């Protein structure tokens, strides 16, 4: 069998049951959050917010997860969640495909699957709660840094791991955006990988600046990377000479905004992501929606959301943090 034969294997699933938009949220639902890794600080915030939100509609929610960010470890957790007959699984996938098999098994047993933060393959979940449109994140990163470097000079990207799906999607849109003639004087010289490891990201930043002395800007669309890069730049002679932008949490970046190392960065509110995820899962499990495009559901105080193409629900545009507003946030 080769790749080409295999494509025919893909089966078309019959459209699921009808959605009933007026169905009330069921009581006593069991929701489970499965983060990439149990001690991922960012996802902890998401999950805790989601668990808190579940109380609003009398569901019991829990967070379980592996102590390492490996796809294989998530699989055994999914299997046990199926055994435990949860009503919905919310997962931030370490590998979009590796978790597919068991997730499909879950869906067959009428367990709803919602991906958040990091998507799985499209046919392995009903919904993907996207923090923001991937395309918008990717393009806006380039647009913002371009303004900061005045549409001139070399830039680089400091990503997480080589295989991080969300990162790679964003980077794809960044490269696409850069094709626009208005960026003709800008050049993306390198994509470096900090593996979402503080030390590695730190060292990669150093290396970038050494290898490309004319570097004008770095985009780091990962919270670990951007913080590490900021820390390196702030303590080096590059401070003020190199622009850093990316996705980071206000608490991590406050110091560098204040000392001028970083002018601005962006992120969505992870608490809202968790909140929305919980409501979306509940809506699915109660039959309000099925994950088809165009369906609408209410997410508590966040208001109404519409399911987009491929089952995507978009939280909203990211917040841009800078000197003026950073003290209004604490996460």
């Amino acid at each position, binding site marked *: *069998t*080769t790749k080409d034969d295999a494509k025919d294997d893909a089966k078309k699933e019959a459209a699921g049951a009808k959605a009933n938009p007026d169905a009330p949220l069921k009581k006593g639902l069991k929701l489970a959050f499965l983060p990439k890794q149990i001690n991922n600080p960012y996802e902890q915030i998401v999950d805790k917010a989601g668990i808190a939100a579940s109380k609003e509609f009398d569901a019991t929610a829990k967070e379980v997860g592996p102590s*390492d960010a*490996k796809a294989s*470890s998530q699989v055994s957790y999914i*299997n046990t969640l199926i055994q435990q007959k949860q009503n919905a699984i919310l997962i931030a996938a370490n590998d979009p495909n590796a978790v597919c*098999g068991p997730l499909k098994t879950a869906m067959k047993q009428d367990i709803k699957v919602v991906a958040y933060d990091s998507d799985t393959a499209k046919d392995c979940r009903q919904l993907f709660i996207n923090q923001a449109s991937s395309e918008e994140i990717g393009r806006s990163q380039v647009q913002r840094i371009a303004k900061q470097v005045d549409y001139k000079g070399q830039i680089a990207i400091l990503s997480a791991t080589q*295989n991080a799906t969300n990162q790679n999607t964003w980077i794809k849109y960044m490269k696409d955006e850069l094709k626009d003639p208005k960026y003709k004087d800008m050049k993306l010289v390198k994509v470096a990988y900090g593996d979402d490891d503080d030390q590695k990201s730190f060292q990669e930043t150093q290396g970038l600046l050494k290898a490309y002395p004319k570097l004008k800007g770095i985009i780091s669309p990962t919270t670990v990377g951007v913080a590490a890069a900021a820390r390196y730049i702030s303590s080096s002679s590059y401070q003020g000479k190199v622009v850093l932008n990316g996705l980071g949490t206000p608490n991590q970046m406050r110091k560098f905004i204040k000392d001028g190392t970083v002018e601005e960065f962006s992120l969505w509110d992870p608490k809202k992501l968790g909140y929305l995820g919980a409501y979306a899962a509940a809506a699915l499990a109660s039959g309000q929606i099925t994950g088809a495009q165009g369906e609408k559901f209410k997410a508590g105080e966040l208001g109404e959301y519409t399911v987009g193409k491929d089952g995507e629900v978009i939280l909203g545009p990211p917040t841009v943090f800078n000197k003026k507003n950073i003290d209004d946030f604490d996460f």
Partner: protein
Amino acid sequence: MSKYLRWDTAVGILLIAVFLTGSGTTEGFADTGNLSSALNDTAEIALIALPMTLLVVAGQVDLSVASMLGLSSALAGSLWDAGWTFEMIVPVCLLVGVLGGLLNGWLVTRIGLPPLAVTIGTLTLYRGLASVVLGDKAVADFPEAYGKWAASTETVPGTFIPYPIALFIVLAVIAAVLLHSTGFGRSLYAIGAQEDAAHFAGIRVKRIKLALFAVSGLVASFAGIVYTLRYGSARADNGLGLELTVIASVLLGGVDFNGGKGTLGGAVAGVLLIGMLNNVLTLNDISGEIQVIVTGLLLITSVLTPRVVAVLSERRHRRAAAVS
């Protein structure tokens, strides 16, 4: 303990105890579906543990296994992406595994480097090659027809045993016979306990070591294919860090890291014990970090208990001797 109960037997008993307690107290544990998937989750570890046991008995160790698994997976992915047939990919991956194992063995036997040092080096190298081969791509469109051979939902008819585990059982029996009832097995114990003496007894120490490393590479690359099919995903970082889990399982089963001691049954019991225990704990919503602690404590207990028992029986003996 040494006299009445060996540690590897104790691990076996512990395994049964966990199984019984799990069935009694934990809903969903004794479910065949759960057992199939829990077993299947240990497939790669179990497979790699077999040659690892032989290596450790012979006083060697191979830390590069997880990287070789990743390399094999990455290679399978990139060849599949390039339009190769699966029937061609598998032999190529296995060949690479053997070559990688031979490199380890060559460095150990020819250059005379300690295996720990060599395989820490190749651990980095093979993982690096995996990333060279596949880069940041993830290949996932493997055919269902093959995937099902590795899935936990497909079992040997009439049982709850998935195919990778069935294969593991066959290989484990072969390995057990090899280790415990053949001259080759005897040589391994001799090499592990005292290499010089084995050499002087005309045992082909270098050749045997080379063969062991080659087999270890072969099985690791095979485990890479199982992994790829089972998760339907070929990535350069597949199986990252698995080497320590494999070694922990083998050591838990009472195989002596210094070589010359241990049984294959013990090692297999060690693998299954960690797998079953984690499954029970997960079903009881005990989170990952506690499972890690439990694994660590088990490992420490595994070496401490025989010691304590030995010291106690020594005391008893001395008292008896003094009285008589």
